[in-house]
């Protein structure tokens, strides 16, 4: 079970912005109430920034995994315009 803790929403840089695709899966998708979104964000942004923008300022739960363009990464990775940024709980296949 993911427990949310509120946090302050980071300001998105004015002026230059880019668009990234956000995806949520499994229990996170249910908790977010949607399977993703397209978000506009300042040109210099990390996956964590994308999360804050897409989640409306919620803190990134510590057990959530992050993938950019279908590769695992951590929340500090920079993203670029057109990237697909996915957030999901620990995987349970097999």
């Amino acid at each position, binding site marked *: 079970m993911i427990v949310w803790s509120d946090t302050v929403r980071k300001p998105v840089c004015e002026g230059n912005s880019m668009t990234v695709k956000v995806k949520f899966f499994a229990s996170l998708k249910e908790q977010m109430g949607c399977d993703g979104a397209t978000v506009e964000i300042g040109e210099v942004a990390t996956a964590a920034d994308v999360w804050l923008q897409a989640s409306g300022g919620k803190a990134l739960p510590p057990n959530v995994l992050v993938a950019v363009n*279908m590769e695992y990464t951590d929340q500090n990775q920079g993203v670029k315009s057109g990237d697909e940024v996915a957030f999901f709980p620990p995987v349970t296949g*097999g």
Partner: protein
Amino acid sequence: MKIAVDEAPFSPWEALAQYERDVVQPAFPGKFGAAATFIGTMRDFNEGDGVHAMTLEHYPGMTEKQLQLILDEAFNKWKLLDALLLHRVGELKPQEPIVLVAVWSAHRKDAFEACRHIMEALKSRAPFWKKEQLDGGAGRWVEKNSDGY
């Protein structure tokens, strides 16, 4: 090497027979001395509760990409000839196969070690998620895979 992620149920032993006959034997006649396989099947219980159905969600695109990475790693680490990896998604009932991992090699050490490694890597890295339908009626996400070692 073949990877398939499919909503349709599969028959693991038939899939293995067919793949070995149509792909492995023609490509490596007389060269494989070992085949190690693992088949994961849906149980009707988990963590003390009865389970009568399961939904397997995945991340299309990333799933295949990660499975390919896992197999590539195994082929780099061990001397393998061929591999077959099948995984169900969608709606499952107890006793239906979930996953099949098969590895062919000249010698048994490679097949044993690679098969288990692929399975553990899949469990920890391939983006699948299980939601169980408990006998009481509630839906429950499986939170974490058990440790395989």
